[in-house]
């Protein structure tokens, strides 16, 4: 039936080959009928007549996806990025999954969910997200908890990053290793010394210095799954049936051991002093503490990491023994680490003769994110120059040095605040590492 219609339309097209809407219609019908090769031909024909037609490009990309040419599809979707509708984006995400770009897929999926909070796709969900809906509740109880909340879903992944991929940060890596990796690998040894495994690590420091990165690498290092709970998720604990969500997250981690459970921006959980009077917030904090302590269930095999830019806002109860009892300062990268970061970010860019050591030497206090920004500035400059000269102009040392002057380190704002905490509110020596970094002797 559909085939017949397509045949008829094709005949009509032969009479008026410049009728673009008609050709698009035919192409889409072919797609539906799984005639991918033919559909691709029709979309290409449209593009020949109407160069850059967004819909035709998107159609072509879908054909490529169906034909298994995933990387070709991804290239088109990336070009069309700002013009994609929901359907296109779903296929884009699926292409990314097929190409094993899971990280990017997750990012895209999160963006999609932000715009379409109710969206769910079984294929994608199976790979990317673990649903924690109250699906296993008896039907008649579901009403008690309201509609299952699609937002209450958290991303779980299995990172391939290792500690070796993290430049510098030797002290941080060592601390993590002794505190949580070794107990997992050599439980008997720790038992013999009477050391109990468990408890979490709180990473703090200026933004952009790799706290999340090292947490992810921790999971990779021990071949564990990684659950990342970000600011958005934490906020949503305040909104709606929060305590239950928190419990579900921990349960999910317990079901999937070994697992690294990472709370980014954990200070948002503690909220500010005045807000503690509000009982809702106190509930969430108490629930979090109970889960950390493993009151009802065992946290064996669950490694809990948290990160914050504002350790002073973290509820002091979080720091008691058995909870986040190891607190590590993640400082801006030192000179060798900066060199490594620069080299890795410059890979694949048209680099001329670059003395990364020289750039690393003048970028004290620059975070990893700042270094990336410097390279971006230099790349943009060079791109502009290349366009006007008509040939590729490689990046040189002086271009990077120029960019350094344009981009001040974003950590300085953090340090000017942290310095005051270290000077005036360092009662238990919590911020000694900051004083040490700032070379302040007390």
């Amino acid at each position: 039936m559909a085939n017949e219609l397509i045949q008829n339309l094709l005949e009509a097209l032969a009479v008026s080959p410049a009728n673009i809407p008609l050709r698009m219609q035919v192409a889409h019908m072919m797609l539906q009928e799984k005639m991918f090769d033919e559909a691709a031909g029709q979309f290409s024909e449209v593009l020949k007549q109407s160069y850059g037609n967004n819909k035709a490009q998107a159609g072509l990309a879908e054909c490529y996806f169906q034909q298994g040419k995933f990387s070709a599809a991804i290239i088109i979707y990336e070009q069309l990025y700002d013009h994609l509708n929901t359907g296109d984006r779903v296929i884009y995400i699926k292409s990314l999954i097929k190409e094993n770009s899971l990280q990017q897929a997750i990012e895209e999926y999160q963006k999609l969910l932000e715009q379409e909070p109710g969206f769910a796709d079984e294929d994608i969900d199976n790979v990317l997200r673990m649903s924690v809906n109250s699906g296993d509740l008896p039907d008649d109880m579901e009403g008690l908890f309201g509609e299952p909340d699609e937002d209450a879903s958290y991303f779980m992944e299995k990172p391939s990053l290792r500690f070796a991929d993290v430049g510098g940060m030797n002290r941080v890596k060592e601390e993590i290793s002794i505190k949580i990796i070794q107990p997992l690998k050599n439980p008997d040894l720790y038992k013999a010394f009477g050391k109990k495994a468990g408890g979490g690590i709180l990473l703090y420091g200026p933004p952009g210095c790799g706290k999340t990165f090292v947490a992810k690498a921790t999971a990779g290092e021990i071949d564990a799954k990684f659950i990342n709970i970000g600011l958005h998720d934490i906020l949503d604990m305040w909104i709606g049936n929060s305590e239950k969500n928190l419990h579900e997250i921990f349960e999910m981690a317990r079901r999937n051991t070994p697992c690294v459970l990472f709370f980014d921006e954990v200070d948002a959980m503690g909220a500010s002093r005045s807000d503690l009077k509000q009982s809702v917030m106190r509930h969430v904090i108490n629930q979090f503490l109970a889960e950390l302590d493993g009151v009802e269930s065992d946290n064996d095999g669950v490694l809990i990491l948290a990160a914050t830019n504002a350790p002073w806002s973290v509820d002091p109860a979080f720091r008691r023994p058995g909870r986040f009892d190891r607190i590590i300062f993640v400082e801006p990268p030192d000179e060798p680490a900066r060199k490594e970061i620069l080299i890795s970010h410059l890979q694949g860019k048209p680099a001329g003769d670059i003395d990364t050591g020289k750039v690393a030497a003048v970028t004290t206090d620059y975070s990893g994110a700042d270094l990336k920004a410097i390279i971006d500035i230099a790349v943009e400059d060079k791109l502009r120059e290349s366009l006007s000269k008509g040939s590729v102009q490689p990046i040189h040392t002086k271009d990077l040095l120029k960019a350094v002057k344009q981009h001040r380190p974003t950590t300085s704002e953090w340090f000017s605040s942290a310095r005051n905490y270290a000077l005036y509110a360092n009662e238990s020596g919590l911020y000694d590492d900051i004083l040490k970094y700032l070379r302040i002797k007390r």
Partner: protein
Amino acid sequence: MNNLESHIERANLLLEQGRYKDAEKYIRQVLEKEPENDYALSMLSRCYLNSGQYDKGIEVIQQAIAFDPEQSYYYYLLGFGYYQQDLHLPAIDHVRKAITINPYNSEYFGLLGSIYLDEKDYSEALQAANDGLAIDAENITCLNIRSRALNKLKRTAEAIDTMQDSLSKDPDNELTHVTVGWNYFEKGNHKKANHHFREALRINPNYGSARIGLKESLKSDFLPYKLVVRFSLWMSEKSKNFQWAFFIGMYVLIRIMSKVADNYEALKPFLLPVIILYFIFIFFTWIANPIANFFLLFHRDGKYSLTKGESITGVAVIACLASGILLACYGWYFFDKAPDNIIFPAIILATMAIPIAQLELPPDFKQATARIWYPLGLIITGVLAIPSFFFFTDLAYFLAVIYGVSLLIFTWVANSWE
């Protein structure tokens, strides 16, 4: 709950936590869909106002008012923005407008009181604080304004009572500690002031007024500085006319005293020390601050409260004074009477401390004004004059006269800059 509502709720949580940049992202998503949502605009304004971007904050809250002119809170925010920009008159207007719409919010009266306090209208400030406390007897802002105003109105006992009350209710409030600290400081008890400023900083280490207070109370350990501060506090409470009359009166008095001393040999031993003391005091009022800063450099905590500029100025002023005095001593020791080519450079060196103390180098010289160029010119003239005394005596005297006259003018002009 729809998407926009939950964005607003998230933004509210973030605002309460002081995460203004994160809050801004959610608010912008709401405003993209609903650009005329006045509540979202008011939240955006709060983000700006709380992160010190007062211009933007004022602009955005004005838009919100245009969409809904009946919200008292919007006028309060607008008043707050103007207050932060030291535009007291429009600030008072808008806070009063907020109070007209909603007369039952004690926080509005607290802001009104703060503005009057800055205007040095202490009885109006007290009135506003009392009005606010009539609505909510425990409003911390109003209690603090009340105490500050009472202290200024010399009702010290009541001021202390007010604060002890609020300290016992909430001992962990940084604002209260700062108020108590300043009350003690103005009474001359810098030790107790120091304790409260430290407490305030322990609670909130980024509280600017507490940091200034701690610095000032530490510097008051240096007695001459404390005297200068007491003197200037006493002066600042007098009217402008009194201040001028006082300075001119003192000047005339000293002139008469020196004439009398010249004519009556017998009175000279009594009058001369007074005259010298007067000049030392005047000289010291100019350089007390950098000298106190210099001593702070050796204080365990104090050194970290100084800015880089303050440390450099402190060292430079001490270096000038010390080298001037040393040179003069050398002159007296090796010669019967110090020769001109030693005593003049010594005086120039020592007095250069005055323009150095006043010099605040701007980050960008294109924006430099007379306040920068004048002292800078003085310093350069002085620096040129000193070596000239050893080589070109004529030029040296010429430069020294220019230096001396300009310095005299400077001391009068710079006074009016303060």
